[in-house]
C-alpha cells in the first residue's frame, strides 16, 4: 500500500511510543515527588498520533506542537535528555530551563515548538509554510510545515483563519487534528457542533481524511499522503485522527468526567499494544521485548542524568537584547 511504513520504521515507531509512555510515567512520578513545576499533560493512549504523524518528517520540516507535546517532541527527533532536563527546569534542558514542558523547542530538529495557547500552533505552522514555500521555490526544496492540534483547538478562530489562508495560498502545511474526545475536561459534544471535524476541510476546498488514531500505520499512511501532497506544492490537507486520552488532562486533574466504560474500551485499543500485535507476524517477541526494554532504559538514563544536572542561574538580558526597554 502506498506510503506504508516498512517493518523497520514500524519498529522504530513502536520504540518511540514506548519511550513516550515511559517518559510520561516517569514524569508522573517526578511530579508527585515535587520535582517538576506546573501541570504535566500526558498523552497516554494517543502516542500513535504524535509518533505516526511525524515519522516521515525531516529535520528541515517544521513542526508546531501543543501543551500535550511529548509524543510530538520525541517523534520530531528531540533527544530524551533535553526534554526531561527542560521539564525538570535544568540548565541542560532543551531551552535551558526557561520554557518548561509546554513550550519546548529544538530548532536543529525542526520543532518550533510547544505552545500552551490552545490553537496557537495552527497559525504558527501556517506562517512557517509561507517562508518554506518561498524558500522551496528559490532553491527547489520540498520542506513542509505541520501542526498537531486537538479537537478543542479546532474550535478556535485561528484554526479557521489559518485553514482558509493555507488553502488560498496553497501552502505546504499539513493539519493533523488529534481528536482525543476532550478539551481538558469538556467532552467534544459540548465543544464541537459536529462529531467529525474532518467535514470542515470541504469549507476550505482542501482534502480531508479521517483515520483510526490508535492504529499507527493508518496514521502514518494518511499523514504521509498529505505530506507528499504538500511537498509537491499542491497545498494543505487535514487529517483527523480519532483517539482517546486514557489519563487525566494533566497531573492536576481530579477526574470525574470520563466514563469507566469508555476508558476500559479504549484501554483495549492501547496503540502500543496494537502496534506490537501488528508487528508480531514479522518480528519475534524477544526482539520486541528488547525494543521495549531499550526504550525504557533510555528514558530512565535520561531521567537520572537530568536529575543530576544543575538548575540555571538568572542572568539579566544585555542592553543589546530585544528585551531591553531603555536605560533606567
Amino acid at each position, binding site marked *: 500500500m502506498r506510503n506504508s511504513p516498512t517493518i523497520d520504521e514500524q519498529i522504530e515507531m513502536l520504540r518511540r511510543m514506548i519511550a513516550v509512555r515511559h517518559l510520561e510515567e516517569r514524569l508522573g512520578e517526578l511530579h508527585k515527588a515535587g520535582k517538576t513545576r*506546573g501541570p504535566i499533560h500526558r498523552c497516554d493512549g494517543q502516542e500513535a498520533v504524535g509518533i505516526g504523524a511525524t515519522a516521515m518528517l525531516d529535520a528541515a520540516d517544521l513542526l508546531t506542537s501543543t501543551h500535550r507535546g511529548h509524543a510530538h517532541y520525541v517523534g520530531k527527533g528531540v533527544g530524551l535528555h533535553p526534554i526531561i532536563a527542560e521539564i525538570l*527546569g535544568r540548565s541542560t534542558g532543551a531551552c535551558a530551563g526557561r520554557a518548561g514542558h509546554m513550550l519546548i523547542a529544538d530548532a536543529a530538529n525542526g520543532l518550533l515548538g510547544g505552545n500552551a495557547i490552545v490553537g496557537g500552533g495552527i497559525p504558527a505552522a501556517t506562517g512557517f509554510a509561507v517562508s518554506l514555500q518561498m524558500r522551496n521555490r528559490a532553491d527547489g526544496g520540498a520542506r513542509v510545515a505541520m501542526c498537531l492540534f486537538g479537537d478543542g483547538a479546532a*474550535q478556535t478562530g485561528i484554526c479557521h483563519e489559518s485553514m482558509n489562508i493555507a488553502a488560498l495560498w496553497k501552502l505546504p502545511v499539513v493539519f493533523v487534528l488529534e481528536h482525543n474526545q476532550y*478539551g481538558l475536561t*469538556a467532552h467534544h459534544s459540548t465543544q464541537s457542533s459536529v462529531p467529525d471535524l474532518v467535514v470542515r476541510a470541504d469549507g476550505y476546498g482542501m482534502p480531508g481524511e479521517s483515520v483510526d488514531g490508535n492504529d499507527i500505520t493508518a496514521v502514518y499512511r494518511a499523514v504521509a499522503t498529505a505530506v507528499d501532497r504538500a511537498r509537491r506544492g499542491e497545498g494543505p490537507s487535514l487529517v483527523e485522527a480519532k483517539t482517546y486520552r486514557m489519563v487525566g488532562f494533566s497531573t492536576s486533574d481530579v477526574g470525574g468526567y470520563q466514563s469507566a466504560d469508555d476508558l476500559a474500551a479504549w484501554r483495549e485499543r492501547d496503540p502500543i499494544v496494537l502496534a506490537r500485535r501488528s508487528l508480531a507476524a514479522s518480528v519475534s517477541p524477544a526482539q520486541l521485548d528488547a525494543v521495549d526494554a531499550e526504550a525504557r532504559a533510555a528514558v530512565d538514563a535520561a531521567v537520572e542524568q537530568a536529575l543530576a544536572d544543575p538548575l540555571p542561574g538568572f542572568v539579566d*538580558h544585555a542592553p543589546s537584547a530585544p528585551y531591553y526597554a531603555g536605560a533606567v
Partner: protein
Amino acid sequence: MAMMRYAEALRAALREEMQRDSNVWLFGEDIAVYGGVFKVTKDLLAEFGPERVRDTPISEQTLTAMAVTAAMAGTRPVLEIMYADFLPLSIDALMNQASIYNYIWNGQVTMPFVLRTQGGGGAGAGAQHSKSLDALVAHIPGLKVVAPATAADAKGLLKAAIRDDHPVIFLEHKLLYNSRDEVPDGDHLVEIGKARIAREGHGVSIIASSRMVIESLKAAELLADEGISAEVIDLRSLRPLDRDTIRASIAKTHHAVVVNEGWRFCGYGAELSATIMETAFDELDAPVERVATHDIPIPYSEPLENAVLPDAAKIAAAARRAVA
C-alpha cells in the same frame, strides 16, 4: 464572620447572586461539569442547571464578545477566562465593543457582565500561564477592574461586580485561591473604587493589589524590624482608582513604593507613579519607587522565575531606598 478560602468566597458570591437573581448565568471553559479548573464553580451546574452554568468551546474572543451583547439583551453573564494570559484574545471585545457602547450609543444600553480570570506567577506555569495583565485591561475606558487580595474582598467585590450595570473585569490570583481569612456573614458587598488600608504606618506608603498585598504586608514586617513603619494600601479596585486614599497616605508618610505583579514598562505601576506625581508631588520627600516584574517573558525554572517576579524582599528593598 467565617473563615473561608478565597476560592470558596468566590463560589459563595456566585451562588448567592444566582439565587438572588435568575438573570445571572455563568459560562466558560470547563466550569460546568468539572466545576472549573480552580473549582470556583464546583457543584453550581447541579444547583442551577445547564442553561445557567455552561461549558463552552475554546473561543475566548467570541465568548467575550457574547458576554457584551448578552448583557445588553437582558441577562447578567459571568464569563470565566481560565488564565489572564488569554485576555489578549478578549481585548478586541473589551476595547472595540464593551468599551464603546454606553457612551457612543448615548446611554441607550448598559452591559452588566463580569469577566472573571486569574493571573500571576510563582507556580511554574511558564510564559503563557503566569502573567499579570492589569495594565492591559485597566487602560480601557468604560471597564471597571478589580483585583481582590483577601477572601472577604473576593466575595464582596464579586457580588458588587455582578450587580453593577457596567462591565467589570475581575482579576483573581492563582496563588490566592487557597488562602483563608475571615469573611463577613450575610449579604457582604464591597464598593468598587475604594481602597483599603491593609496596615497602618507612617514612614512609607506601599501601594499594591492582589497577591502583592500579601507580599507587601510581609515586607512591612521586615521593615518594622528595622524601625521603618510602612503603611500598606490594598487598592482592591484598579479602575476606578481611589486616588484620595493614596494621596492621604502619602500626605502622612511622604514616601511611596508602588507594587504591581505585571511587567514594569508601561505597567500598572507606571499609572500609580504618574498619579502620585499629579496628586501628591509636593508631599513627596523622595521619588516613588516602582516594583514590578522584569521586562521579559516569565521563565519556567524556579530560580529564574523567582528572579523576575516581585516579592517581599524586593518590596522591602525599594522601601529602604525610598526612605534612605
